[in-house]
């Protein structure tokens, strides 16, 4: 017992130690320091003063003393906009992907894998490049405006870039594979015979969809939504390129604290708030999925 047990333990320790070291030193430790920073006082010229300081959160949440730090509702509104844009992104990509995913599941094996390949392919192309494409399309001298002007539909170019719409469009475009794949997976698992049974029982196509397909694809919808929501909420690349200075999201705010304002403690506080929001949503996801699974087992 002892001998074989020791051998096993040594082997296990050998296999696990690299990831343990990697994640302790370069993941847990950085996140802990981030948390510590969120409660430190910002130095005058960047840097930090090692004092306990709750004013970083005070600035955002409202208990700032108004002397050193001021409560500014603008942070609330930026948070609000981030949530609004992230949720809009989720809903639009869900609506866009659902019919297409449904269509792909109805194809033959070969065509299904072909369209799955098509949907994953953009994921391999650079994110910046894909966003850049939309800059070219949306900007005042961009493809849409030039085309519309050249065929005489409009005289003056539209303002499409640097709007909330452009930011949502960009996020939807980049995160579409993340929504499509979980949706497809849950729709594909759907038992065909279930749909046929429903049809046999006299339910029309619409009814079958509402009563069978839709409820059973809820886990895929929720999964895809979470996977799209998380990177949307903290995003700063998309709002930076397509939203400019007009459409600030939390990501931009955090980035500014680090690379322009050099107020690291405040940036850390903002980052922790994003993280807590994300973890909350994940918790909801896990609960929903567990409940759905429990329902299906019944």
């Amino acid at each position, binding site marked *: *017992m*002892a*001998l*074989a*047990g020791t*051998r096993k333990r040594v082997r296990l320790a050998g296999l696990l130690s690299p990831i343990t070291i990697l994640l302790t030193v370069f993941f847990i430790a950085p996140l802990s320091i981030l948390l510590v920073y969120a409660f430190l006082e910002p130095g005058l010229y960047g840097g930090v003063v090692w004092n306990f300081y709750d004013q970083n959160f005070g600035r955002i949440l409202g208990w700032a003393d108004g002397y050193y730090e001021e409560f500014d509702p603008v942070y609330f509104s930026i948070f609000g906009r981030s949530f609004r844009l992230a949720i809009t992104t989720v809903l639009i990509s869900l609506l866009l992907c659902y019919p297409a995913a449904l269509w792909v599941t109805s194809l033959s094996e070969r065509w299904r894998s072909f369209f799955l390949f098509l949907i994953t392919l953009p994921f391999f192309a650079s994110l910046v490049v894909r966003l850049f494409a939309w800059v070219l399309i949306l900007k005042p001298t961009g493809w849409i405006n030039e085309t519309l002007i050249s065929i005489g539909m409009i005289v003056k170019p539209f303002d499409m870039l640097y709007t909330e719409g452009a930011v949502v469009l960009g996020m939807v475009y980049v995160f579409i594979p993340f929504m499509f794949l979980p949706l497809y997976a849950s729709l594909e698992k759907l038992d065909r015979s279930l749909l046929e049974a429903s049809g046999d029982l006299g339910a029309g196509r619409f009814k079958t969809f509402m009563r069978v397909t839709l409820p059973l694809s809820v886990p895929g919808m929720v999964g895809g939504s979470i996977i799209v929501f998380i990177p949307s909420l903290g995003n700063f690349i998309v709002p930076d390129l397509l939203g400019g200075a007009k459409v600030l999201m939390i990501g931009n705010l955090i980035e500014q604290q680090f690379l322009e304002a050099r107020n690291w403690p405040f940036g850390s506080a903002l980052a922790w708030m994003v993280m807590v929001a994300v973890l909350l949503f994940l918790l909801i996801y896990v609960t929903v999925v567990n409940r759905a699974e429990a329902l299906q087992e019944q």
Partner: protein
Amino acid sequence: MISIRNACKRFNTPEGSVVHALQSVSLEVGNTEFITLLGPSGCGKTTLLRSVSGFEDLDEGVIDIDGQEMTHVPPNKRPVNTVFQNYALFPHLSVGKNIGYGLEVTGCPPAERNQRVGEVMELVGLEGYERRMPRQLSGGQQQRVALARAIVNRPRVLLLDEPLSALDRKLRESMQLELKNIQHELGIAFVFVTHDQQEALTMSDRIVVIDQGAVQQIGSPTEVYDWPASIFVARFVGEGNLFEGELYMDGVTLHLRTDQGVEVQLSENDKSRRSGRAVVLIRPEDFQLDPTSEPIADHAVLEAEVTQTIFVGTDFQIVATIDGGLPIKATIRDPSRTLAREVQSGSRIRLRYRLDAPRVLPPDSSD
């Protein structure tokens, strides 16, 4: 060859309870013996086999192989090899590479390796399949590869974990004979695990009947069949009619009065008790139909009403009810194929048996 003493193994279930997979199992396996571990699934026979091969670590007890203690020696350093239930052939290696694997990893020079691989392939009848991949073979052929791979290292003991369970009946029966022959040719011990009592009776020199982690009986096939040590063995090996009741002596003959009130006569022997609660076993084939009512010396008769008859080729099976509602099964040789006409559901029959055929077993302690 193998000596197992007081082997104990416990498992913790996910629910938090403890399962005793092996409870103080002791067993000796001879040099060229074909020994079978027989029992229902989950009885511990596979655990016992895996502790011999080294994949399970005993909590208590000692395992010696070839006079050397092996209890905690890792699997790769034990002079035993295994034929796995699902064959576990390496899917990425050809048949030849699969068979030569054991020689290759133990550093056997290529020339000798090729020769030995050729030899065992011939032995198991796989000549010409060297280059094939496992997935290109039939189930029976895969089984042969698994066997060849396990014997090429010339183990002192070959362990076989239900190797024939995936084959169809015909193939299984021919493989049973072939395995026996191969064992004979190799002159090594085989430890064979199965839940199929027929297989165990056909192939083994000795059978170890295991239930709930404990050895129920060890003996030759005829011993186990003829003199089952417990109700479990009687039920698990072969078929049997079990009558539970009270033993008593009536003059010179021993009787059992079942709880339903049926009198069963039997002769005493040195192995049986004479009084107290007991279970009496009569095998279905111990019965004969007794058309006359003439008493015959050393025989007794049970009268019953037929409820069902089943034709099974050479034999004729009768399910009947003795007065008092006790069901009874009889298997009658019927070479002339006349019984089907004579015996029908509802007809009354007299089942005659020799007085020394019944076996007296201790009552089930768990009841």
